[in-house]
């Protein structure tokens, strides 16, 4: 076979290329020809096809994502916004924090362990590439029905993969989510978040400038992994009846990544790096074109110098390979020797594969012949933009009309008690410690809060106690009922969780998991959710700093529930002031903050007791969320509250169960005037939290709430070894614990 060089392409304009097989549309191919003024070479086609895929180019989503920039709130804390590997926020004392959540959904369904593991690996490299030391990970997960046989295959594999990779890297896992719903049966969602810390002056960007600077590829050798994975995975719905479509799976090597982290941090420390980019989706195609287009000059790469694991790889394959644990750095010639020494110290293979040039083109050579000659920006950023049609689905009205308020409620106290136990034992509400105990939460010695707390919290300065808190949330059931409100509810919940831990919410990252953008109903859900999230972030003053979109999460014509997962980052000046969820001391007074309304649409109760999804989700009030957060933060700072737990799915009874079991103490509860016991226990009105206040602080605390206009209702006291709802029922803690903690091990152990 003759090599398809640029010269050859010019001479054979009519040669047919497999653009269709690579996932390109006819007009996209025409556009490439127009850009180049000739037909692309095979290598060029490979690069354009991966970079213009949905996954890399955001072609269906970018017209909507624009809002995150347009509606960005004024926020002095934002140091680097959307567009870089991850956003960076100022957390004070000279520190900056970068965080991002990303999806690895499709690969995790095919090969749960490796899919999840490489998902963690990928997001960690993104954070590293910003110049930060990664300090924690989180894993928002969604699976099919808990009792479905395939969930028994997927969940243990995913959990072992998240743990296997993160534990081996030495990153504490400080939180996440586990949600079961049959809508995720063929499309589990594996999202992964990483947070990193650096000093302001250490921020690094992905750009290649300075003619003569060297392009250094370092880390693992390049193999035949995941070739075409990007385009095939993201452009088409995965269909497991056709094994031929299965992309090659990537296998991760966390040990290699750990070396990559230490080695990279050391070259940063010695200021040897002018620009840096991790290799993720689209591998070298992505790294070289993005580095070159963000810089001032062009770039020349000799592909022969790329260290290979498999000597038979073609140049196209080398460009598309998604082998894990690789990074690409731009280094001034005078620093190359030292850079190499540090790589050698860490047993990391490093190779100069090219250099930054005076020109404006990205030129790639193979055996001395030119196979790529493109304007890098056209590959990296000028992919197609679709204005996909969207329309509110015709079933939406009927779904919203099917009000959960009409569902039969428990008629007797006995029935109420039964439903409480059923709720806290249901897979979604049950304790997840069987899962989270497979993750190291202690490593690095800075973990202040981890699962099952409302937010994960790590200390970033041992001397001052400065720390950050993070929570991720997303409720696909709410979003299905109303995607605009659903996205805001996810935001509100994560925001509230962070505030409940005592930290001040600062910034947002998100992972938008949806079905096929080619379905106008799904596209409408997507448009509504992004609009809701952007409006919500503007209102709360928390900018979106970055995130990820995962589309085509559907089986046949059936899409998953729209699932915007929102991560909120907060800062706390001294982690000693953090608020845990545990009711740990008898005599603490329990206060319910916020208003409780009859809101059961999309609720856990409607799902667990009636297998019902309909009506409207609870009503969001972002001003109220803000006020609640201020009270929670002041309460923590001024030592007025000993414990706090936000109220979300499952309502009050779920929160009280978790806090009592965590502290090993019971509670006596009184149904407040004006509420019935059922609504009191199960309503999911947002903007609420339950707090435990020492008697000595009661007056100060209620005065503060009163002065600021936040309803605070005394609902009981921490006491004994049972949860008692006066006049209704009593459940001994032991019985509650068995119900709440037995479910997940019984399903998966």
């Amino acid at each position, binding site marked *: 076979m003759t090599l398809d060089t640029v010269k050859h392409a010019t001479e054979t304009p009519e040669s047919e290329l497999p653009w269709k097989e690579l996932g390109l549309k006819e007009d996209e191919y025409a556009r490439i020809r127009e850009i180049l003024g000739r037909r692309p070479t095979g290598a060029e086609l490979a690069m354009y096809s991966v970079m213009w895929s949905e996954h890399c180019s955001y072609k269906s989503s970018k017209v909507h994502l624009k809002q995150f920039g347009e509606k960005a709130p004024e926020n002095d804390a934002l140091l680097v916004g959307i567009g870089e590997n991850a956003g960076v926020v100022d957390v004070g004392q000279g520190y900056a924090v970068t965080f991002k959540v990303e999806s690895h959904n499709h690969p995790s369904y095919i090969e749960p362990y490796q899919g999840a593991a490489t998902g963690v690996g990928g997001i960690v490299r993104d954070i590293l590439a910003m110049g930060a030391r990664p300090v924690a990970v989180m894993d928002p997960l969604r699976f099919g029905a808990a009792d479905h046989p395939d969930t028994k295959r997927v969940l243990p594999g995913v959990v*072992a993969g998240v743990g296997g990779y993160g534990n081996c890297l030495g990153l504490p896992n400080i939180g996440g989510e586990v949600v079961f719903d049959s809508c995720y049966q063929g499309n589990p969602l594996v999202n992964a978040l990483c947070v990193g810390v650096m000093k302001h002056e250490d921020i690094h960007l992905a750009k290649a400038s300075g003619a003569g600077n060297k392009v250094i590829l370092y880390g693992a050798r390049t193999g035949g992994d995941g070739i075409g994975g990007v385009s095939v995975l993201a452009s088409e719905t995965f269909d497991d009846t056709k094994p031929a479509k299965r992309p090659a799976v990537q296998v991760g090597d966390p*040990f290699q990544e750990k070396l990559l982290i230490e080695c990279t941090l050391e070259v940063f420390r010695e200021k040897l790096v002018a620009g840096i980019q991790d290799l993720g989706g689209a591998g070298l195609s992505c790294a070289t074109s993005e580095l070159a287009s963000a810089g001032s000059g062009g770039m020349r790469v000799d592909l022969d110098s790329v260290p290979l694991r498999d000597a038979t790889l073609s140049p196209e394959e080398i460009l598309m390979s998604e082998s894990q644990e690789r990074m690409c750095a731009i280094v001034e010639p005078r620093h190359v020797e030292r850079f190499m020494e540090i790589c050698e110290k860490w047993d990391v293979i490093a190779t100069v594969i090219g250099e930054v040039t005076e020109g404006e083109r990205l030129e790639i050579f193979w055996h001395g012949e030119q196979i790529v000659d493109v304007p890098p920006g056209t590959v990296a950023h000028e992919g197609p933009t679709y204005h996909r049609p969207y329309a509110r689905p015709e079933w939406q009205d009927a779904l919203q009309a099917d009000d959960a308020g009409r569902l039969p409620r428990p008629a007797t106290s006995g029935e109420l008690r039964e439903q409480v136990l059923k709720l806290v034992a249901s897979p979604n509400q049950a304790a997840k410690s069987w899962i989270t105990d497979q*993750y190291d*939460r*202690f490593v690095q010695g800075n973990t*202040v809060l981890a699962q099952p707390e409302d937010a994960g919290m790590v200390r970033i300065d041992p001397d001052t106690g400065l720390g950050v808190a993070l929570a991720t949330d997303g409720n696909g059931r709410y979003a299905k009922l109303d995607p605009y409100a659903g996205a805001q509810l996810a935001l509100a919940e994560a925001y509230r969780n962070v505030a409940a831990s005592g930290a001040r919410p600062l910034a947002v990252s998100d992972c938008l998991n949806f079905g096929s953008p080619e379905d106008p109903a799904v596209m409408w859900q997507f448009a509504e959710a992004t609009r809701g999230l952007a409006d919500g972030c503007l209102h709360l003053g928390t900018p979106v700093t970055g995130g990820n979109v995962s589309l085509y999460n559907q089986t046949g014509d059936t899409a998953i529930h729209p699932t915007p997962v929102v991560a909120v980052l907060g800062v706390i000046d001294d982690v000693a002031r953090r608020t845990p969820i545990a009711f740990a001391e008898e005599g603490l007074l329990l206060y319910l903050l916020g208003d409780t309304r009859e809101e059961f649409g999309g609720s856990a109760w409607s799902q667990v007791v009636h297998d019902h999804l309909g009506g409207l989700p609870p009503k969001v009030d972002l001003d109220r969320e803000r006020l609640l957060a201020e009270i929670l933060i002041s309460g923590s700072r001024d030592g007025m509250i000993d414990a706090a737990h936000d109220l979300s799915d499952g309502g009050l009874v779920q929160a009280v169960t978790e806090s009592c079991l965590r502290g090993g103490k019971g509670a006596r509860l009184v149904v407040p005037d004006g509420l019935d016991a059922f609504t009191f226990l199960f309503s999911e009105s947002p903007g609420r939290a339950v707090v435990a206040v020492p008697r000595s602080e009661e007056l100060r605390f209620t005065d503060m709430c009163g002065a600021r206009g936040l309803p605070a209702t005394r609902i009981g006291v921490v006491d004994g070894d049972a949860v008692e709802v006066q006049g209704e029922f009593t459940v001994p803690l032991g019985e509650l614990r068995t119900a709440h903690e037995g479910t997940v091990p019984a399903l998966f152990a």
Partner: protein
Amino acid sequence: MTARIGVVTFPGTLDDRDALRAVRLAGAEPVSLWHRDKGLKQVDAVVLAGGFSYGDYLRAGAISRFSPVMETVIDQARSGMPVLGICNGFQILTEAHLLPGAMLRNNHLHFICRDQKLRVENAETAWTAEYEQGREISVPLKNVDGRYVAAERVLDELEAEGRVAFRYLDLNPNGSLRDIAGITNAEGNVVGLMPHPEHAVEPLIGTGGTDGLGFFTSILKKTVAT
């Protein structure tokens, strides 16, 4: 002059910085040691920290055991230098035959991370002198290859000589024989255990207690005294 306590970093070691911090909090001088260097920088004692050295590939500790630094550590340990192996460090010590037995995959096959109760069974080793015999402590446990096994004869010998240094309480988290969480050599200078005392040295962090600090104050006293 205070004691110099070395902490070895192998490729893949994770808890080295935490161990250095624990040494500092105990009042000793922390010294970083690198796996490729044979020299021990005149330290008085060595900690082999936790993690996944060499990815735990082949067997946990199997590859690290052959590093240059271990040649010296093995030598010095045989002539009495105190060595503490935590988790991966314990695995390295068994692979190096400084301690008997071996570590295998947990009986439930999962990585497990929990607050673990232990009993200090031998308060006379170089690393436990600050505890009273029988003291119950709570420190984090986190591993996947934590099941201690040895031949019956070896176990009997360990018991008879009081060389079971720590035993799991309440729950045996991994199927370790005779609930063994940690052991010592006959001389009491080499100690290995699976749980992580270096993660229990500050309020708030980890378990939120300081039950693990005694390991580091013990060695400080011991090395300053001698």
